[in-house]
């Protein structure tokens, strides 16, 4: 049993068989057993692939003739590796005795050589691992007929362990039965993380070199709550996680069963539950989970797939989201690039502290030509439904005014071209910087609605990078300072009759759902899968009870006391919760 630690990016538990996609091996391999009578064919397939790979090298050497010896020497060496009798023999043994498919046999044989070479106390041999990888890719390409296998053909439930995923690979995973992900590199905003959230499967990223240490078919547990990947768990651990997985599923199924009941407190107060999405496909899931619309549509993904997405391309995507929401709210957040999210080319060059640098709306305003493209696309899509615009990370009122000026210019341009749009499209801002929270009265006067981004608000208010293990314990959503800011923002919004929503992780934390309700919040925007949970909690309590809880926390001087109290009240009011 080995445990690897990474960064959790989608909560939940997945137990499954590993499907491994290590670095530089473009073909994914999964453990496939073959019947004894198929073994001869697999063996033949492998021999043919080895021969073809060697012939291919001969042709390449021929082409290199006259270009000096160095290049062809490497090819000669690779050819010698491919023709090593040990390799063919090892593959043959795996096929005949292990009943492995040709691909899996090659993969398994190669992993053993990798391990051996890495274990050698010799620089010479260790450097040769790269050659092995290259040779493996070459043989594998011939084995699978030159084409990369599609993930869509996966017949059963597996857990994907990859070095990293390209956008197209991540995209091809959308409609598969993959139960969970783990990748060697990446942060919470990597493709893998986005895809995991869209597919609602647990994921852990940044596990180091896991993909090289694991073999396809090994049993893997992905603990998306603690950010752990456990390989070959002992039976007690495995049983413990299986039980947890079952409990989660049962509890979740019970919540989903009542997803269409209204989010209304016992004493009859209505609450709005919306969804946070990143991909157009998630609208379907959001609605299926009982969300009343989209409270936060993150658009960074478009910039990751394509460096400068065109106006038409963006228009098509936004239009599709708005259309499929059929008149329900569709709040599109303008590009929030940089810092922990996908950074645009050159954006963070020479920045000592990207979180305090040119990120989000600041970057958008520094790149008006790029920003205008997005504003025009959103405006054009606004005729398809209840589209609203959300500007992220406003820290001073000048930024808001400048963004609104550009929006007005985009409207003029469209009007001049006779292109239709919603003229009074509602405009809102994210309140996620302490300065915005403290001056929210002034800012709210110039917008239609507010959205509280609790992740950044907590991080900036407490000056804590929550990914930094040395200070992560100071990232305390329940701290008195945060409670004070939330109370202030919600109260001001109510006084000015502006809509206010919470769209950070806090809004899906059961304890805070209760507290925020008591503070006066009436709009939550959460991950699609969390919508049934939030609705269930709201339905289980009365507003009077929630207000009493919020009032009681006023006197608490530490996050620990506040969170313990909320947990205790939650358990009393909403029993049998996960």
């Amino acid at each position: 049993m080995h445990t690897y630690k990474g960064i959790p990016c989608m909560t939940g538990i997945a137990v499954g068989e590993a499907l491994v996609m290590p670095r530089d091996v473009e073909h994914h391999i999964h453990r496939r057993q073959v019947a004894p009578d198929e073994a001869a064919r697999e063996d033949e397939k492998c021999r043919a692939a080895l021969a073809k790979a060697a012939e291919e090298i001969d042709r390449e050497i021929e082409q290199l003739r006259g270009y000096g010896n160095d290049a062809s020497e490497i090819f000669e060496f690779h050819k010698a590796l491919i023709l090593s009798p040990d390799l063919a023999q090892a593959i043959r043994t795996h096929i005949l005795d292990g009943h492995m498919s040709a691909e899996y046999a090659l993969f398994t044989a190669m992993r053993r050589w990798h391990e051996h070479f890495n274990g050698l106390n010799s620089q010479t041999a260790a450097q040769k691992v790269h050659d092995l990888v290259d040779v493996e890719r070459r043989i594998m390409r011939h084995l699978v007929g030159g084409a990369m296998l599609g993930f869509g053909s996966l017949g059963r439930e597996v857990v994907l362990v990859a070095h990293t995923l390209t956008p197209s690979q991540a995209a091809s995973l959308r409609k598969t039965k993959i139960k969970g992900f783990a990748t060697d590199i990446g942060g919470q905003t990597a493709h893998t993380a986005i895809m995991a959230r869209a597919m609602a499967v647990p994921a852990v990223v940044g596990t180091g070199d896991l993909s090289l240490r694991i073999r396809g078919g090994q049993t893997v547990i992905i603990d998306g709550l603690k950010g752990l990947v456990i390989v070959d768990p002992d039976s007690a651990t495995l049983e413990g996680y299986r039980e947890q997985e079952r409990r989660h599923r049962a509890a979740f199924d019970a919540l989903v069963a009542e997803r269409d009941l209204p989010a209304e407190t016992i004493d009859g107060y209505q609450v709005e539950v919306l969804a946070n999405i990143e991909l157009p496909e998630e609208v379907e899931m959001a609605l299926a989970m009982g969300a009343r619309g989209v409270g936060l549509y993150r658009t960074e993904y478009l910039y990751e797939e394509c460096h400068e997405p065109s106006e038409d391309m963006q228009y098509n995507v936004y239009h599709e989201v708005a259309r499929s929401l059929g008149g329900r709210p569709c709040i599109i957040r303008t590009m929030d690039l940089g810092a922990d999210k996908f950074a645009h080319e050159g954006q963070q060059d020479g920045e000592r502290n990207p979180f305090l640098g040119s990120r989000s709306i600041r970057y958008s305003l520094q790149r008006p030509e790029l920003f205008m493209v997005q504003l025009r696309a959103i405006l054009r899509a606004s005729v398809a439904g209840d589209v609203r615009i959300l500007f992220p990370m406003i820290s001073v009122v000048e930024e808001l005014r400048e963004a609104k000026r550009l929006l007005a210019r985009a409207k003029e341009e469209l009007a001049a071209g006779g292109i239709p749009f919603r003229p009074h499209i509602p405009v809102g801002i994210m309140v996620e910087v302490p300065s915005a929270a403290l001056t929210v009265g002034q800012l709210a006067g110039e917008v239609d609605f507010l959205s509280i981004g609790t992740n950044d608000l907590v991080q900036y208010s407490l000056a804590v990078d929550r990914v930094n293990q040395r200070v992560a314990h100071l990232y305390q959503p329940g701290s008195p300072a945060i409670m004070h800011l939330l109370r202030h923002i919600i109260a001001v919004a109510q006084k000015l009759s502006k809509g206010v929503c919470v769209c950070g992780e806090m809004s899906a934390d059961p304890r805070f759902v209760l507290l925020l309700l008591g503070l006066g919040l009436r709009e939550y925007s959460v991950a699609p899968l969390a919508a049934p949970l939030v609705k269930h909690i709201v339905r289980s309590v009365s507003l009077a009870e929630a207000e009493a809880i919020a009032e009681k926390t006023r006197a608490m001087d530490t996050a620990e006391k506040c969170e313990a109290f909320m947990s205790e009240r939650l358990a009393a009011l909403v029993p049998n919760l996960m």
Partner: protein
Amino acid sequence: MTKKPGALSGNDTAEAVVQIANRSGLHGRPTTMFVKLASRFKSAIKVHCTGQGKEVDGKSALAVLSLGMEYGKKLCIRAKGDDAREAVAALGALVRDKFKED
């Protein structure tokens, strides 16, 4: 990848121990040269690093490389078969000649 010593077939046997004399050791190019030369002989050829019992196929690049033979280490070459002596002599000379490197 490991074979028991003494599993050679044929009549003649020959054996030689040579020190790796080229600075970069048995890396890609020398390994290729060694294996290519070994493959020209009918005899079965086994090699190992002296002091380390593991003996491997001298005609397999993967296996020879896996010995991790660096500069100064001693390689034992054993051959069994009709041309065993020629094989050991030729392979020994290749190593002593530093694979035409340095």
